[in-house]
């Protein structure tokens, strides 16, 4: 067998190995006649009380007591629901966005955007960021610790919205004022819907990041509102996910240059 033949075999093998991944990957491209969706997520259940935690480790940095609001609603509308539009392969770039955690922590999820999601988790005041967010498989995620104490970053992936079965992805020390970069590989993230991140040292630090593979997602704001724009025309599945309340979905048809209004309503879990 000569060198050319060997090279062809190698290239063919590589193509076979890489083909499925390449077919699934989202690509940024120019799409004409785009439409948009906007709507609100209602919460019709009884209002929830936050969980309270007595801080045992590092109260000098984290405070003596912390609380965690898992179902946050105002005037009947739900904050922090993750809305995802499935099945889009080509379209707009990932938008740069920043979401800040609830006080007293001021950690943030910063999405750099562009060709990929580009998630940076900036931990501050014992807070990774808001209770919910998004993450992409096979991308590097930068975890930065701006605190003067160590956190132990433990991440899990689950195949269901509420994370009934969680599988460890990374379990890693996050040293004071240090940063680490970790990939959430596709073999561990297979069929994964959500990634939960916690700190093994501070049990009030827990967040849920829903897996997305395109930039057509939104997180409902404090009035339950969301908007997704620059959507290529077509029929898609629109999902709304919440770690406690679960998942709802509906078929939506996006028409060129039109805005579609939708609504979701959750009751008690």
């Amino acid at each position, binding site marked *: 067998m000569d060198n050319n033949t060997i090279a062809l075999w190698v290239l063919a093998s590589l193509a076979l190995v890489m083909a499925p991944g390449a077919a699934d990957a989202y690509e940024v491209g120019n799409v004409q006649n785009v439409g948009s969706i906007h709507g609100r997520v209602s919460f019709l259940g009884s209002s929830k009380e936050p969980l309270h935690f007595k801080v*045992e*480790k590092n109260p000098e940095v984290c405070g003596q007591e912390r609380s965690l609001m898992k179902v946050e609603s105002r005037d009947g509308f739900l904050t922090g629901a993750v809305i995802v539009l499935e099945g889009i392969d080509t379209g707009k770039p990932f938008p740069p966005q920043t979401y800040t955690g609830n006080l007293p922590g001021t950690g943030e999820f910063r999405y750099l955007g562009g060709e990929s999601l580009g998630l940076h988790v900036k931990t501050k005041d014992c807070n990774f960021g808001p209770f919910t967010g998004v993450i992409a498989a096979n991308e590097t995620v930068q975890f930065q610790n701006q605190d003067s*104490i*160590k956190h*132990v970053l*433990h991440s*899990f992936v689950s195949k269901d919205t509420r*994370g*009934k*079965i*969680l*599988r*460890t992805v*990374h*379990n*890693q*020390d996050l040293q004071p004022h240090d940063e680490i970069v970790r990939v959430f*590989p596709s*073999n*561990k993230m297979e069929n994964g819907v959500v990634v939960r991140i916690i700190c*093994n*040292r501070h049990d009030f630090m827990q967040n849920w990041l829903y897996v997305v593979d395109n930039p057509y997602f939104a997180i409902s704001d404090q009035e339950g509102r969301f908007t997704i724009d620059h959507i290529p025309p077509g029929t898609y599945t629109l999902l709304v996910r919440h770690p406690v309340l679960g998942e709802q979905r509906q078929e939506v048809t996006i028409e060129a240059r039109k805005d579609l209004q939708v609504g979701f309503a959750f009751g008690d879990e």
Partner: protein
Amino acid sequence: MTRSIRYLCFIFIVGSLGIVYALPPAEGALLDGLMGGVEESLGKKAEEKGERLVIGNFYQAERPDSHAPIGVMQDHTHNKGEFMFTYRYMYMYMDKMRNGTDNLSNNDVLRDFAVTPKNMTTQMHMFSAMYGLNDTVTLMAMLPYVMKEMEHQNRAGANFTTNSSGFGDTKLAALWRLYAFETPSIGSHRFHLNTGVSLPTGDINPTDNTPLGNNSLLPYPMRLGSGTVDLLPGLTYTGVRNNVSWGFQALGTVRIGHNQQGYKEGNRYKVNSWGAYRWADWISTSARLNWQQWYNIKREDGQLQTTVGPAQIPLVPTADPERQGGQRLDLMGGVNILFPEFMGLENHLNVEAGAPIYQYLDGPQLRQAWSFWVGWQMVM
């Protein structure tokens, strides 16, 4: 050691290292993805209780009992990139001769032998390091420095003492994560496989001055290593629920071939089970049962004097390869103290002491009276 056995050892070591390095990027425990039915069943039960099932939740350093009692080694795996350095000191005291389960007096032994051991102390300084190579494999290396002292009495009533000291055998191991799962009501359960080799760096020709002459070759119990490459297979299970933790470990030492002196130490098998209670975030206490069985020496060291005088009186039981085996069950009690973020690291100070509650020896042999361990572990 014959050439073929050396080749076998070489292939085993290179093969083991090859497996470790060929597997990356290792992405988790070996049984991940193969336990679908178990996970489904556990997940359903957890859901019925309103709980979550967590898979792959391995090592956490934040508990005083996150490590087994200090006398247990290779009891946990580390997360990727994590280092742990350990210093252990062990003191073991042996006194009185025993045959089977019967204690013997010095005179009992001296009826059949020219010399009897009276007591023995063994001290070990052990330096070890563990490193989380990836999410599957944790590597471990350990080098001990050993000091032994044995007091004897001969038929004339004269006492003498022999000493040996130096580095012991070097142990290299790879710990393979098998599986871990956890729910709040059933606690967390972790399994890993122990594989390793012991390299013959310990002296098997120690000498000291004895009534037989200066620089006499010391018998088997005074030697600092086995002289052979030994395989160290094993299996470890640990569990935690609320303030209670427990574990079980079976470890073997399987000798390969014969050493340069022409003999082979008997294989040794060890089963440990322990339980610990966490009284506070920083302190836990433990109880441990340690069952050991070890076998007689195969062949013999041809250079070791075994008889004395024209009547060929057996010299001393410790020079008889057929009087080295035995079984023992030790009961140990320990304390683990956690010093979190001391010098910026997780530090564990662990102490353990205990004594045999059952001892059967292919004697006459010195019985073990008690042992004491203290160790300092730094996780970074």
